């Protein structure tokens, strides 16, 4: 009998660590193959230009150079990088060649490449390539881009799509509304900055190809590469080895991956490309970038009547894999945790001559949560209400779940009251308000602000039917296989593709818990399409809520198969058996039983199985979620603002999150911490800034202010646990929640500190200069 303790909820340290803390890692850039060649890409230095000519002849003569190519050399075979989410029937999806041929539309777009024996020789040869550009005007401002006189990014114009959702009587909601709040918020452009720069290796053997890539999506990438390159899918193997972070930035079908395959095919030799950080800041897809016009109508007591959202979303120069859909994920989240009579949402996707945008941690939901939570604190100030009281006035009560919101989603479970009560307690809310009052009264140069963020989010992407209704190109199911080895060990093959999330550990816990096998006896395989043939990969906080539940389903099938075989072994009827984790035994005679290991061994020998029973316990399950996953939480931020220097220091940050049933609290806390860091960074530090010519200014980590350990506080985190009702494990997603919640909590705190000076808003990131200017402008206006 195995000595299994309940694994769900256990603070297990991770199996992944063994190789990561000793440097026994397998990053894509580590890969060495016989005869491997190195690829370097020449990128446009201009935001918008016609390519008049590309001369690679001098590059080809350089020592160590095998080949050099321009876009013309690939024009016939390179196709177009895919956009798999055509959100409207009339959406403009421009052709997107992996290597530009006639025109470049963002600084960083690939125009040529060199293949050489080593990376230094390749870099040297790049400098010998001569490109003649004819400059075109950049298009950098979305509002300007939509005017008639604007230069065009594409022939078809600068508008990609317009998407509208409406429910309820907006006219009635706003007519005679005692309070109407109108705000415009800028959601700045961000660079995801995973610590591992992207790398790709492609090795051809005859007409078959193996591609290693630092990707979050090996399965999706395989399908897409087959469609773009024409290489038959079954002759293409995609491997995501160890991947150093993604955050959505490695959820992509990139020019570099396609070109690596085409180069390997053209040359018949293995090739590798590794980006530098500067290259990555420029060329990896960016996140966010919206202009939000928000209107809220409310009663005098704060009850929300109506919400209107008009978004301009910056697509960048091209639509990449899910670019147009990202802002639309937020469409269903502006109404957040609140009840209201009417809701209107409109999003216009706009082309600019900037790096394309796409998914970045939260993908549409942080933008929405910022919009509503910033507006709610603003509304509370307008009404002279405590911001928490305004939330309470409007949120869905615990007793009202399941609740179908004005945007049409049915939230299965939640307990906003409990999370908020716990957060308030941890935070010391009343004491901090008193301190705030005291500092205001004494005119302290360092003021204290308190920011509230009560959020929910939609994750666990996603019910395939809903994806179909939204015109998303793929499904949202996930797959798991369990292989029971003869000696009782277990191999799990998951369609999830972890890049830091600890699936090898958490999936082992699920299997250990259900099958009653020791945690150490489980091995989790992932990331290689030859090993894991079926999956929808990892993003959108889906792996536990969908992949974990698929695994649970596979466990159930294993247990059911084991029952039949155990009955045969024990010479009883299956109905006489009962299951305790790890063992089928005879009801009323528990000494008569067989462990799962004994049963697995019996299938190996297969000497005495019942007729018609396959000699195998191995089982697959594919799970398509019936609903999105709706974690929620209450975050409170206390920020000290030095009114003389504009410096903001987070004094304390409390996060109480409810992610349903917790499998591994260590991993959950870690995801929250990391999410908070990125959300706080958006509030205070990060911005992908462009100059007036369309040059990205923040190409290095010296300019793009990813926070270090001195830039972040220690977080106080806690949880409530309200299980999901839409899956048998009760689990919800957590990966993006911290990021979604924290940005408005911090900005709200900054603005709250400065309200007495007449400051109504501070644009993100709330740098010292912006804070200081906001104070100065408000004081100036007051005179």
């Amino acid at each position, binding site marked *: 009998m195995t000595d299994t303790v309940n694994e769900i909820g256990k603070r297990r*340290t*991770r199996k*992944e*660590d063994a*190789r*990561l*803390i*000793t*440097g*026994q*890692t397998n*990053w894509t*850039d*580590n890969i*060495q193959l016989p005869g491997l060649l190195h690829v370097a890409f020449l990128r446009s230095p201009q935001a918008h230009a016609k390519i008049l000519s590309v001369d690679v002849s001098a590059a080809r003569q350089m020592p160590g150079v095998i080949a050099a190519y321009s876009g013309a050399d690939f024009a016939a075979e390179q196709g177009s990088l895919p956009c798999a989410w055509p959100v409207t029937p009339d959406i403009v999806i421009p052709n997107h060649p992996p290597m530009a041929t006639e025109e470049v539309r963002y600084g960083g777009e690939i125009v040529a490449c060199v293949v050489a024996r080593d*990376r*230094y020789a390749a870099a040297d040869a790049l400098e010998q390539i001569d490109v003649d550009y004819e400059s075109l005007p950049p298009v950098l401002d979305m509002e300007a881009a939509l005017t008639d006189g604007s230069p065009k990014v594409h022939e078809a114009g600068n508008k990609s799509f317009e998407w509208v959702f409406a429910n309820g009587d907006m006219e009635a909601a706003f007519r005679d509304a005692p309070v109407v709040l109108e705000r415009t918020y800028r959601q700045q452009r961000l660079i995801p*900055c*995973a*610590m*591992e*720069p992207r790398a790709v290796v492609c090795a051809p053997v005859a007409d078959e190809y193996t591609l290693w890539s630092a990707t979050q999506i090996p399965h999706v990438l395989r399908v897409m590469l087959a469609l773009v390159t024409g290489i038959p899918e079954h002759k293409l193997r995609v491997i995501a080895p*160890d*991947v*150093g*972070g993604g*955050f959505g930035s490695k959820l992509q079908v990139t020019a570099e991956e396609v070109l690596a395959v085409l180069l390997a095919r053209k040359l018949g030799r293995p090739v590798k490309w590794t980006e*530098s*950080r*500067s290259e990555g800041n420029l060329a990896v897809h960016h996140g966010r970038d919206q202009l939000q016009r928000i209107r809220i109508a409310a009663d005098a007591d704060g009850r929300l009547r109506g919400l209107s959202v008009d978004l301009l979303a910056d697509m960048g120069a091209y639509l990449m894999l899910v670019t147009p859909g990202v802002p639309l994920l937020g469409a269903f989240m502006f109404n957040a945790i609140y009840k209201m009579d009417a809701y209107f949402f409109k999003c216009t996707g706009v082309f600019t001559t900037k790096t394309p945008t796409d998914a970045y941690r939260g993908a549409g939901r942080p933008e929405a949560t910022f919009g509503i939570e910033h507006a709610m604190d603003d509304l509370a100030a307008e009404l002279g209400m405590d911001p928490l009281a305004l939330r309470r006035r409007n949120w869905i009560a615990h007793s009202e779940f399941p609740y179908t919101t004005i945007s049409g989603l049915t939230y299965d479970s939640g307990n906003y009251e409990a999370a908020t009560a716990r957060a308030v307690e941890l935070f010391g809310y009343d004491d901090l308000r008193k301190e705030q009052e005291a500092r205001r009264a004494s005119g302290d140069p360092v003021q204290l602000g308190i920011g509230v963020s009560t959020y929910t989010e939609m994750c666990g992407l996603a019910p395939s039917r809903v994806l179909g209704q939204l015109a998303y190109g793929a499904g949202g199911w996930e797959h798991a296989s369990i292989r029971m080895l003869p000696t009782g060990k277990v191999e799990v093959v998951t369609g999830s593709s972890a*890049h*830091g*999330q*600890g699936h090898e550990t958490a999936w082992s816990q699920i299997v250990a818990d259900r099958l009653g096998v020791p945690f150490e006896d489980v091995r989790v395989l992932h990331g290689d399409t030859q090993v894991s043939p079926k999956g929808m990969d990892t993003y959108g906080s889906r792996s536990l809520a969908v992949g974990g539940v698929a695994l649970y389903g596979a466990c159930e099938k294993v247990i059911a198969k084991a029952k039949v075989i155990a009955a045969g072994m024990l010479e009883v009827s299956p109905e006489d058996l009962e299951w305790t984790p790890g063992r089928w035994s005879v009801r009323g005679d528990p000494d008569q039983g067989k462990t799962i290991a004994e049963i697995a061994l019996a299938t190996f020998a297969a000497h005495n199985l019942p007729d018609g029973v396959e000699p195998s316990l191995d089982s697959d399950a594919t799970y398509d979620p019936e609903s999105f996953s709706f974690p929620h939480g209450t975050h409170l931020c206390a920020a000290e603002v030095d009114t003389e220097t504009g410096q903001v220091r987070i004094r304390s940050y409390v996060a109480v999150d409810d992610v349903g049933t917790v499998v591994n609290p*260590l*991993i959950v*806390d*870690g*995801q929250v*911490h*990391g*999410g*908070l*860091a*990125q959300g706080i960074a958006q509030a205070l530090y990060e911005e992908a800034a462009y100059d007036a010519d369309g040059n990205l200014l923040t190409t*290095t*980590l*010296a300019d793009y202010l*990813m926070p*270090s*350990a*001195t830039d*972040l506080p*220690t*977080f106080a985190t806690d949880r409530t646990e309200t299980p999901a009702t839409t899956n048998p494990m009760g689990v919800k997603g957590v990966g993006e929640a911290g990021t979604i919640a924290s940005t408005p909590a911090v900005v709200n705190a900054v603005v709250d500190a400065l309200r007495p000076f007449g400051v109504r808003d501070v644009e993100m990131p709330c740098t010292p200069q912006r804070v200081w200017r906001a104070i100065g402008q408000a004081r100036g206006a007051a005179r």
Partner: protein
Amino acid sequence: MTKISMTIDGVRYEDEVEPRMLLVHYLREVAGRTGTPIGCDTTNCGACTVLLGNSDGATPAGDKLSVKSCSMLAVQADGADITTIQGLANGELHPLQRAFHEEHALQCGYCTPGMIMAAADLLRDNPNPTEEQVREGLEGNLCRCTGYQNIVRAVLRAASEGATP
């Protein structure tokens, strides 16, 4: 080409390299010590941090200083005695490695080698740091996954266990 020699994780290497070759490229591609990753190209991120001492015979890791190996040329490390993440454990895990594991101070693990090596140097210099001193000491090492909270806990834990490199 210039001839250099150095000791890396206890093994002596002799090679001819271009003067412009970065030490981190030498470690990864010539010496094959791929445990040390590259995270940026402006010396900001610290993922490439190793410990470096002078070599007239091997020096114990305690006498070595941390250096970002992307900010040195291989030729500058001629004669050096280098410890990378792959040479830190001595039969058993170093207390920092154990602490990082116990405190879940890593998620994707990409920043981890540099973070651990920088922490080793921090503790050599200040065996009993405060939390603030740990944060300041690791300011040159960027992490995108953890938010630093558990990294700080791990370093404090290793310090309390008397971790000396």
